[in-house]
């Protein structure tokens, strides 16, 4: 398939100058270098920064980020290379011959200190009133270099108005250090194209098109820029004050749901290494904070699989059994609100390919304010639904006007992993030491299928486990139900499952090869959409798209920092937990069966679920008024 070979269309300048090696003979070769007087052997073409870090030689950096193309702009990582008059940015300097490097010479230390002094002189704001206090790369550097006064003065008045227009993202350019990580994230990594450096010289400013508020441009709220911002210049809009207020209000019944990927990451906010699942402790903490009910979004993920899987089967039926030319295939998943806004802006003509299913967060909200309210005999007007999500786009999603089929907002507040961790700390709780406990009934059980929604490919895997079994009556033919082609971190992945010995009612699918594709990160989504437009996906049936690299475990609301390694560990934690669960298929979740018996009585994609669990989309287009 040509998709993986397709050229990334982000501009060259935004991914400057990945080190290219022209002499073929050198590829794969090793080279001897001397670093601080000691000899090392490093791969040909590796940058000085990577070579040093691989050998435990610390070089500070700021604009460098593992996920992003090189910039070489901040100059914090400069080192001395013998024979060169000027210092070299180690992040951008490829080792292609035997060189001698000094990483902490007097010239280097002095230059780094000066650069820090310069950055600090322009950095407005106090650390203790900053969301990134204790997790700020500039602050860390200042400490590392023992900055104890402002050598070149310090800015006394704010120069820019804080942009709070967005539901999800707050921009405070007074804290910006112009490392352009957000620009490289937005234009190159995600290909959304909201942020760019504007103006020139000392007036340079990261801004939006025509300096418009972020609400008015084509931001998809994915929050990836926040995850990569070294300072507090970009942050999420925090609703925790209102949530505390609701908790403290005795007339309110406050219900919280936690997304699958929270448990795999929240430990990092308490100093644990990535990859520690904290499910039980988190549930305990949420009860201690005072939430009236603690539910697992995995339940709603199972519900999503029932709806979305059924929708897929219905589309297949319409197309292949009834020959309906109107039916759109492949069906695209709709769980990722960043992806939804992306397609609404960039591919508004292709919204019919999207599943009409709401995301699990919104489905759960709708169920809570209807079925749950009935069962518990609580006036839905007094129910406050909070969703802890790895996601900043969910803050926008819950405010979409169409998300109130029950007559009430499905979800009142979207909270990120980081903000939840902050609430837990504020409640005086140290998460890792808590005893474990279970989610509340009546939605206490969830399947492993719902859990793996948190990683890229998870929705696809969960759906296939159910769809295959609905059609054939047997489990998917993969060892331990692990559909390995769905897993991994490649940007675009694909595979197929052949349906054999199908049940009578699915006779038309006998021998049918269900072809699927998975993409994460909107730059990859763009590749898939371009392939769709060019007819290359005509024989595909189901496509999973997640807006964030890695899926939800790499979401814009997750703990900072992020890196490929961190995301891999978080995904591992999720897959490991899935393995341990007694129920691993959505349709076997007893609570799911119960809700279809008691409430959604006309079944998946029936009338009631259509009203409550499905939605429609807005043709936004990309024109900025």
């Amino acid at each position: 398939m040509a998709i993986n070979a397709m050229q990334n269309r982000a501009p060259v300048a935004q991914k400057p100058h990945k080190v290219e090696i022209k002499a073929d003979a050198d590829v794969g070769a090793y080279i001897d270098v001397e670093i601080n007087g000691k000899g090392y052997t490093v791969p040909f073409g590796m940058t000085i920064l990577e070579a040093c870090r691989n050998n435990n030689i610390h070089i500070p950096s700021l604009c460098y980020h593992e996920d992003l193309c090189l910039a070489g702009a901040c100059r914090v990582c400069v080192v001395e290379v013998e024979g060169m008059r000027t210092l070299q940015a180690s992040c951008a300097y490829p080792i292609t011959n035997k060189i001698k490097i000094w990483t902490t010479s007097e010239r280097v230390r002095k230059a780094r200190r000066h650069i820090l002094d310069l950055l600090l002189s322009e950095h407005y704001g106090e650390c203790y009133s900053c969301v990134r206090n204790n997790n700020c790369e500039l602050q860390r550097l200042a400490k590392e270099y023992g900055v104890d006064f402002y050598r070149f003065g310090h800015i006394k008045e704010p120069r820019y108005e804080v942009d709070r227009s967005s539901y999800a993202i707050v921009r405070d350019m007074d804290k910006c250090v112009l490392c352009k990580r957000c620009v490289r994230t937005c234009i190159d990594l995600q290909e959304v194209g909201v942020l760019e450096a504007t103006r020139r010289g000392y007036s340079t400013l990261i801004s939006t098109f025509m300096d418009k508020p972020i609400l008015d441009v084509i931001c998809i709220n994915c929050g990836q820029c926040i995850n990569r911002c070294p300072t507090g210049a970009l942050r999420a809009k925090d609703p925790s004050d209102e949530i505390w207020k609701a908790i403290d209000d005795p007339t309110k019944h406050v219900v919280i749901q936690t997304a699958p990927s929270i448990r795999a990451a929240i430990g990092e906010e308490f100093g644990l290494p990535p990859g520690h699942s904290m499910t039980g402790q988190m549930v305990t903490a949420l009860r201690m904070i005072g939430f009236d009910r603690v539910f697992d979004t995995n339940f709603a993920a199972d519900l999503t699989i029932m709806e979305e899987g059924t929708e897929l089967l219905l589309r297949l039926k319409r197309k292949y059994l009834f020959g309906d030319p109107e039916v759109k295939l492949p069906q695209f998943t709709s769980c990722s609100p960043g992806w939804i806004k992306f397609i609404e802006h960039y591919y508004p003509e292709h919204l019919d390919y999207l599943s009409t299913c709401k995301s699990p967060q919104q489905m759960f909200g709708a169920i809570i304010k209807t079925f749950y309210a009935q069962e518990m005999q609580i006036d839905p007007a007094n129910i406050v639904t909070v969703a802890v999500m790895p996601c900043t786009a969910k803050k926008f999603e819950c405010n979409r006007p169409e998300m109130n089929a029950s007559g009430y907002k499905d979800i009142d507040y979207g909270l990120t992993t980081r903000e939840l961790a902050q609430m837990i700390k504020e409640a005086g709780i140290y998460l890792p030491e808590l005893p474990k406990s279970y989610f509340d009934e009546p939605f206490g059980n969830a399947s492993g299928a719902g859990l793996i929604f948190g990683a890229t490919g998870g929705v696809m895997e969960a759906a296939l486990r159910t769809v295959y079994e609905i059609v054939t009556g047997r489990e998917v033919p993969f060892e331990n139900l692990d559909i390995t082609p769905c897993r991994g971190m490649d940007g675009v992945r694909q595979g197929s499952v052949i349906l054999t010995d199908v049940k009578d009612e699915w006779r038309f699918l006998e021998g049918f090869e269900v072809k699927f594709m998975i993409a994460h990160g909107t730059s990859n989504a763009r590749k898939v959409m371009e392939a769709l437009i060019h007819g290359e996906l005509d024989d595909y049936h189901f496509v999973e798209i997640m807006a964030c690299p890695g899926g939800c475990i790499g979401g814009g609301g997750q703990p900072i920092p992020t890196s490929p390694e961190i995301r891999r560990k978080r995904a591992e934690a999720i897959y490991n937990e899935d393995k341990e669960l007694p129920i691993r298929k959505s349709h076997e979740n007893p609570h799911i069966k119960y809700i279809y018996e008691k409430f959604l009585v006309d079944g998946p994609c029936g009338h009631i679920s259509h009203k409550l669990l499905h939605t429609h989309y807005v043709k936004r287009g990309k024109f900025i008024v």
Partner: protein
Amino acid sequence: MPIINDTVFFDERAHGEALEKALKMTPQEVVLEVRESGLRGRGGAGFPTGTKWMLALTAKSDKKFVVCNADEGEPGTFKDRVLLSEYTKLVLEGIVIGGYAIQAQKGFIYLRGEYAYLYEYLNDYLERMRKEKRLGKNILGTNFDFDIEIRLGSGAYVCGEETALIESLEGHRGEARNRPPFPVNTGYLGYPTIVNNVETFACAYIVISKGAQWFSKYGTEKSKGMKLISVSGDCKKPGVYEVPFGIKVKELLELVGAEDTKAVQIGGASGICVPMSEIDRNISFEDIPTGGSVIIFNQNRNMLEVLKNFMEFFVEESCGQCTPCRIGNKKLLEGVELLEEGKCSHKYLNELIELGKTMQIASKCGLGQSSPNPFISIVTNFKDEIMSNSIRGKNGY
């Protein structure tokens, strides 16, 4: 208009026909001839032209580009304007020779927006060359194809830096690239590209026409040939001068009729300020390198005002991507303002000089690396003058 000193170097009768000659040589021979001549880049940095061309010639690629850097933005420089308008043939055919030498198919002239009035003239000239088969397909009946396109700048000094220029040609903000990789490997659109100054191409023309031997007769050991100098400021005869490398500042001052001189700024805003005590120094890559700008200040000039003018220039003209240049120049400018107000302590002044030294070694490109030069040299050489301001209140006291 310009005053060209009487030499054979830029005497039109002595130009000869370099293009004919070059096309009879192999590309290697052309490059070796240029290398032999010791010609170094005339934009100011002085990279050996032959070496640059050799690297581009040996780079493997199906496409290569030649760029003529006519973004002459250094304050006090106007010799390229004169070359382009009065010695057009040397420049344009020099570009063709460069194209032949590295086996490129296309050349650009990146003409600064301020010189837009030359656009029509140059385009007509190119058209004439095409008609005369000196440009386009099968140049002079050989199988060498090469064409030149003129691109206008849009008012950004930093685009004179070669990688920023390439970024600009590619439709981007003129922000300098990381090096390595160098443009000779990875230049315009990722293809091997040589970027040379207008004067360098004219020199290459002369080198081919008159031979490397002849060319290297002039100048010093490491700075071969003649150099065009744009002279402005306090003197009787401002204009473009052609002088051999190695000329003493003193000699130049006599030549242009400078009297009552206090200081000479050599190399433009990014150059250094030479006080009268140092006018025995010479203009060459060994001593005081320059792209060609010489600005003369007489005894009545206030050096702090001069410095302020330079620093304001850099604060606005920095591309703004790297920290030392973006913020550093602003701090130096603020330092000048403190000096004006008489509020800059000697300690802080030294702090700023140290900052300037950091900028010289830690900035990403030549702009940031050279922008502190005037600050350091003026502050050092005219310390008594610039430290003499008293603290001024609103009404002065």
